[in-house]
């Protein structure tokens, strides 16, 4: 029942916040804060008393919804969704705190939308019914549209429309795929259902499977976003209020990555292998092109937005490498990117509040005026460029090693992305905090509230960089579960993709390398133990 509570608390909080918002501005903030904290505490308490590797699904509940169509209210929790939920509630709280001062009009409705988006995201991470999944997937859109469209910057209307149309159009393609899958499964087994667990083993012709998968991919790749489909992202991120950008970058994009892991790989094991080279290529293109564009921006917020494109390239690269190491990297990348990019957006927001511009050329030399802000900026720029000791490093390294096993060329090309990341990240520090004072700004350093937020985020990113093992342990069973199907299939017909099969076969030898790497980066003893366990499984 805890899963229902999580969703109901958020929904109730949303409506309460709206209703109380008419009277004054404090209540909606407090209510949202309390609702999100309750959820966070609930899920952490649950995590402490459960053992993620026990069974397939930690919690699995199912109610009838529209039985005539085989639609049920099927929610389930496993390690992966657990990790994502913690990230969601944590960043949800952060976004409430950072909006405390920034949002001063229509406060009730703002928090209503905020909590509704988080409800949708929570639902996406928990649904095991494809119809329900689509329902939550779309539920995120409308409040996000309002968030950008009402509280955004100058070009908010165009940006919010673009965001909505892109995601809605791609979502509809996924919807068609879901319904086709429903019929394909129904025709072959006589059981018409939208239940994920039932649909898992659907047998279909290769061409059908590929088409259905492309529909799903459209939705996830737009959300992620992948390079030719990324056009909505810079506008939406730039025009959104800080909390909106934070949620967009840190959580909404992750639903795309989550979709790839949860739906594409298990539902379409052989089709996704066919698609893998293209997928990896898209990943590399995203990494390099995103970094290039990030470097070319003069609008600081846009710059940070484009770094998302680059970082998400690593995610898709990792997903289509089909090995455990890369997948662990993907999970860490989702969290680390959520925290580091979120923090950068918060920083941009704080700067904008003080100097009312996002133009990088008008900044410079701010370190003297605001040393704490500068330090925070430095830390997260370093995180963004992948400095060892911070979360992103672990993530990108794991992904690159994983990808190396799958496709050497792609892996080498994408490692160039790290250099590009260094260039654009250092440019942020250089242009904003160091360098010449272009304008003589009078700015205050961070307030206590802002310091607390930054401190929380710094702790999170450092902790992730030094002790990633708990996260990996939690997510590991679900990652292995994701890959099981894939392995069977690749072993059955090694001819289908010789490159990949070979890589999986030689995994044990590579594993010593992984053990080394993880040892090197984790001061945690469990790391080695766990990896040997992993070896046994393989």
């Amino acid at each position: 029942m805890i899963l229902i509570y999580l969703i109901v608390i958020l929904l109730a909080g949303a409506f309460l916040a709206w209703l109380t918002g008419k009277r004054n501005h404090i209540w909606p903030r407090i209510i949202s804060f309390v609702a999100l904290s309750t959820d966070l505490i609930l899920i952490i308490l649950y995590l402490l008393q459960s053992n993620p590797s026990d069974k397939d699904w930690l919690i699995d509940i199912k109610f009838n919804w529209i039985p005539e169509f085989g639609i049920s209210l099927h929610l389930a929790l496993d390690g992966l969704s657990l990790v994502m939920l913690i990230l969601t509630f944590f960043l949800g709280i952060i976004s409430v705190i950072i909006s405390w001062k920034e949002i001063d009009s229509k406060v009730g409705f703002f928090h209503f939308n905020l909590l509704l988006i988080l409800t949708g995201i929570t639902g996406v991470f928990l649904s095991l019914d494809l119809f329900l999944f689509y329902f939550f997937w779309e539920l995120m859109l409308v409040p996000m549209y309002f968030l950008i469209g009402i509280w955004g910057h100058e070009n908010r209307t165009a940006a919010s429309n673009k965001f909505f149309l892109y995601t809605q159009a791609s979502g509809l393609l996924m919807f068609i795929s879901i319904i086709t899958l429903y019929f394909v499964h129904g025709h072959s087994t006589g059981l018409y259902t939208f239940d994920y667990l039932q649909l898992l083993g659907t047998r279909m012709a290769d061409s059908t499977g590929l088409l259905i998968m492309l529909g799903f991919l459209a939705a996830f790749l737009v959300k992620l976003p992948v390079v030719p489909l990324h056009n909505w992202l810079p506008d939406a991120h730039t025009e959104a209020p800080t909390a909106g950008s934070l949620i967009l970058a840190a959580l909404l994009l992750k639903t795309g990555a989550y979709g790839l892991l949860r739906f594409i790989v298990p539902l379409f094991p052989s089709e996704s292998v066919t698609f893998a080279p293209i997928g990896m290529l898209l990943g590399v293109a995203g990494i390099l092109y995103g970094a290039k564009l990030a470097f070319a921006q003069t609008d600081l917020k846009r710059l940070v937005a484009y770094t998302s494109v680059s970082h998400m390239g690593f995610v898709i690269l990792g997903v289509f490498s089909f090995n455990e190491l890369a997948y662990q990297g993907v999970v860490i990348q989702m969290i680390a990117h959520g925290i580091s990019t979120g923090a950068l957006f918060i920083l941009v927001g704080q700067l904008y509040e003080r100097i009312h511009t996002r133009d990088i050329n008008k900044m410079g030399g701010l370190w003297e005026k605001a040393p704490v802000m500068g330090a925070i900026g430095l830390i997260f720029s370093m995180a963004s460029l992948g400095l060892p000791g911070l979360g992103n490093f672990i993530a990108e390294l794991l992904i690159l090693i994983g990808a190396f096993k799958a496709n050497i060329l792609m892996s080498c090309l994408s490692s160039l992305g790290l250099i590009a990341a260094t260039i654009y990240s250092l440019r942020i520090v250089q242009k904003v905090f160091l360098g010449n004072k272009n304008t003589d700004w009078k700015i205050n350093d961070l307030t206590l509230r802002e310091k607390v937020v930054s401190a929380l985020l710094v702790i999170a990113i450092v902790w992730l960089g030094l002790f990633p093992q708990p996260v990996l342990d939690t997510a590991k069973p679900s990652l292995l579960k994701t890959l099981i199907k894939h392995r069977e299939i690749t072993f059955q017909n090694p001819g289908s993709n010789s490159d990949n099969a070979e890589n999986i076969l030689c995994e044990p030898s590579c594993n010593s390398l992984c053990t080394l790497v993880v040892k090197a980066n984790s001061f945690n003893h469990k790391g080695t133990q766990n990896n040997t366990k992993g070896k046994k499984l393989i």
Partner: protein
Amino acid sequence: MTGKDFLCLMPFLIIAIAPVVIMIVVSILRNYRVVFGFSVLSLLAAFCSIFFIVPSVPHTIEPLFIIDSYSLFFLGIIIISALLVTFLSYDYIKQLDGVREEYYIIIFTSTLGASLLAVANHFVLFFLGIETLSISLYILIAFLRYKSNSIEAGIKYLILASVSSAFLLFGMALIYTAFGTMQFGAIAAALVTHDPLSPLVISGFGMMMVGIGFKLALVPFHMWTPDVYQGAPAPVSAYIATVSKGAVMAILIRFFFILRGFNNHYLFIAISGIAVLSMFVGNILAIRQKNIKRLLGYSSIANMGYLLIILLTGSNRGIQASIFYLISYFFTTIGAFGVITLLSTNEYEAEKIEDFKGLFWKRPWIAIVFTLSLLSLAGIPITAGFIAKFYIILEGMKAGLMVLIISMIINSVIGLYYYLRIITMLFSTASDIKLPELSLIGNITLAIIGFSILILGIYPGWLIEIIIRFVKM
């Protein structure tokens, strides 16, 4: 006429007697409230009488009527829509000078025409119903006699509807010439024996299609829609978009399914073409509109295009989907027009998109219902429209109509664009346009509509179950 016949015709009798009573009352004492109250009660009585018929269906009254669960469903939807429109009209009509009570008389006659279409099993009743409906609509559209564009819309509708009726009648006559019968079942039987079809029959059906196309405003017979929607009083536009079109759709579906028209290759292609054209033309023309009533007019063209998909599925489940779609579409459209109605006054019709600027910050309640209606029209989850579209897509894909479904999907995105434009306007910074005060009746009606849209969007299972259990043809 047996007792059972009498029972089955109960709703029609109530709807037919009520306007006569109102006429008598008005000639003695003109009291707006009394007439309004009486109309509401009569419509409610007609609706309740449907439940008494349920045990005795299906029942045929030779040769004209067929009363089965399908027609009862449509009858119920039509009466409920008429009721909602009546509620919404209360303030709008109250503000007028001079004759006001007659409005309700005409609402009744047009509802009578519409309900007859739901039970027609014969060309005669088909034509009678359509004419009763159309002639009442001329008056309703031109009800605001002091407005030139209202008169213009009335005349436009008069001419085009008469022409289309002539087409329809001529088509019926040709079919009658060929087969010697006007009953649907007998025509279907004659069609089987007359293969290949003679040119006489084909042109007969072609002419009927033109006639029905006009009534449903399908492309290329759609030209009248935006002008009429714009010129007519807002509640009347709601009435045309829902009751009138829904009733014609009801008879079209019945006629088409009895004749098994989906088995005819040419007809199949023709209807697919009309459906795709209606979707695209309706949606694309809607993009540039600045007047919400015109915009909704174009959007209704597209919606009828979506509904045509159902004709081609050729299955009971398709019919069930169409009923769910119509129910959701009725609530949604009446909701949207209802908001326009409530914000319009005697002098000023709130119909430009700018009139709704910042509505959310001034009248949050109304703006929410409007937003829900628009989201439902666009087919976004948690609204009825989403489930309805899903239902059609499901049945369409089951029947393998991929081209139609894909164009429906593309059009959903196009549609979304212009609905979003209005929603953006609702939530942008408030302007200083004065808004009229709202009455209790209007508020309650909007609340019911908004609530229904949400309920059907979040928990539609019960309605779908009822539809599946009862509606078969």
